[in-house]
């Protein structure tokens, strides 16, 4: 009798676990994802480079939807340069069950609130373009960063100027004093990329053996209109003394051009920017800018979305994606001058 009871009990256990597993398989099938929600928070909707990147993120998601049949809802919000606003946006995404968020930090030193909230709901975060400090990125294994190395962009700016100086030093050194007088239009006060670009661009020129003299530097917050205002003031003060204008990004370089056009300057200083935006490429093509440094927004957007999609679908990353330390993807910059500007205009439009 005892044996029979044991046999009976074992049969019941096997049956129940079989049904449980069967039911679990059915449940799993019901939960297979046919749609995902991706939240994207950018620091400022008026930053041209970031706008280009957002357009690429959306294009990528449209193509992926067609390819997979999985509905991808991509919700883009602008933090309006307020970290508090951005924290609230990420909290909303988390509370509304978004699968993953992509964050372009307002304050790169203040990612804690976002990370803590995302971690609390198991929502991976892909940071991009404005790099957070390494210690913060290490706080959780579902945090990633996609961007480019600022030092490289500054050095390339420096190289553009040096190449022009090598071609015709006298044409640039209008004062004939053997020194290059320049002004710097900087991104943000205390911003890592702005500081590094400022330093490395001038550093490169100096290391190549040229003497430089800073006439002035102004913070224009990556903003064209602000750059125009600051450049107006610099032109009033220094006028034809300015031989080179370094701008931490293209929007500010375009602001400088706006100022020069407004004052109808006949002989322009050399102007260099960073990013390779559509309008800046046209300026390079028409020789109003000596050059710019291409920031591969398409490559970065592709990397961001591949990581975000894999996280949302709980899949492994594509095999061709190599993340440094399992977290970082850096894409290289490229120099753009008159000779290759058209090529990049085509690349942008592809």
């Amino acid at each position, binding site marked *: *009798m005892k044996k*029979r009871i044991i046999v*009976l009990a074992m*049969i*019941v256990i096997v*049956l*129940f676990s079989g*049904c449980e597993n*069967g*039911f679990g398989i*059915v449940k799993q099938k*019901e939960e297979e994802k*046919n*749609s995902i929600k991706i939240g994207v928070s950018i620091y400022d*909707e*008026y930053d041209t480079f970031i*706008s280009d990147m957002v357009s690429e993120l*959306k*294009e990528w*998601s*449209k193509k992926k939807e067609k390819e997979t049949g999985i*509905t991808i*809802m*991509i*919700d*883009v*919000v*602008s933090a*309006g340069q307020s970290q508090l606003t951005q924290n*609230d*946006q990420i909290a*909303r995404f988390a509370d509304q069950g978004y699968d993953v968020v992509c964050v372009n930090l307002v304050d790169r030193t203040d990612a804690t609130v976002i990370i803590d909230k995302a971690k609390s709901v198991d929502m991976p975060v892909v940071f991009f373009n404005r790099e957070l400090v390494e210690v913060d990125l290490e706080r959780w294994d579902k945090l990633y960063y996609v961007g480019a190395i600022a030092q490289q962009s500054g050095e390339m700016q420096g190289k553009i100027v040096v190449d022009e100086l090598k071609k015709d030093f006298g044409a640039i050194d209008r004062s004939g004093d053997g020194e290059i007088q320049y002004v710097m239009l900087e991104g943000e006060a205390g911003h890592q990329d702005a500081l590094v670009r400022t330093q490395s661009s001038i550093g490169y020129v100096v290391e190549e053996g040229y003497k430089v003299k800073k006439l002035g530097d102004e913070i224009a917050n990556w*903003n064209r*209109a*602000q750059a125009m205002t600051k450049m107006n003031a610099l032109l009033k003060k220094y006028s034809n003394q300015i031989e080179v204008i370094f701008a931490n990004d293209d929007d500010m370089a375009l602001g400088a051009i706006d100022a020069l056009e407004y004052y109808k300057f006949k002989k322009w200083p050399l102007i260099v920017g960073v990013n390779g935006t559509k309008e800046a490429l046209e300026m390079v093509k028409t020789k109003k800018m000596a050059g710019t440094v291409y920031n591969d927004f398409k490559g970065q957007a592709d990397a961001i979305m591949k990581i975000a999609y894999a996280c949302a679908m709980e899949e492994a990353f594509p095999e061709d994606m190599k993340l440094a330390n399992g977290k970082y993807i850096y894409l290289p910059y490229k120099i753009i001058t008159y000779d290759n500007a058209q090529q990049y205009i085509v690349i942008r439009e592809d």
Partner: protein
Amino acid sequence: MKTVRSLLFVSLLLVVILGVFWVYYSMMTEQENKEIRKVSVILYGNSSEQWENLSQGAERAAKDLGAEVSLVTMSGDNDTSEQIGLINREINNGANAILIAVCNSKELRPYLNNLESKIPIVMLETGIMENAKYKCISSDNFEMGSLLARHIIENEDPKVKVAIIYDNEQRDSVVKRYEGFCETFADYEDRIVLWKRNENEKSNKSMLYLQRELTEEAVDIVVALDNTATEGIVDAVLNLNKSVKIYGIGNTDKAVSNLDDNTITELIYQNEFSIGYLGMQEVLGAVDMSEEELQSLIEFRAVTKEDMYTAENQKMLFPFVK
């Protein structure tokens, strides 16, 4: 005896096996019987942030009625073909009902009026002009525009120059607000200038072309007729550090914050929570009212910094704790 015991054992075994399968079957059947209606809410613009109040209203009503909401935004602001694609996609994906804020009233009109849809559709905030096949739930847009004009006439110097941002006129909500404003301001129409985008500014953000307008033309007051225009002019004014009064129609947290810090002089604020709530009730058949009746239930108010914290205004400006 042994035979009886064996028979008993086999019977018991059969009972247990049947019992397990019956429990399993019941659980499966219960799953199938729970039919949850799915409502797709398709909104113009690429961000759900500006629609937070409306979507909260829709979610609340959906919860009350046992429905599920799927919020769908666009990749751009005004791509009719994209929005049509989204409507088709949601229908094909099994949506039981659709709520839609159309991105372009004129271009979507033929599509929606000819759509042979077996599922209910209701429009929100902006419709497709007269004789539409589907109801539209919104405030009285004409009256909102008129109210803005009345308050400028009452509160401002008779000699002020007024710029109206004429943007997003492809939506009939903006057109009606504009008509309401102009009709009330008719006696002073020589003081109005219209700010519009140039051909090469069509794809620019509002702030950029408004910066151009602000630098090209000196005005005392700027009138903004929707969220995008209101936020755009605020950003332009702050960026250029200009001193100009803003009378706007808007619903976003940003607009409310700009009202609080006096960047916006007066804000016409409509109860989008109610639009979302009533829209969901209407599309799921919980209510069946005429457009006029629905419109009468959607309140709007003119709010200034001085009165934004009265009990009544707070209730509408801050409908829920975040």
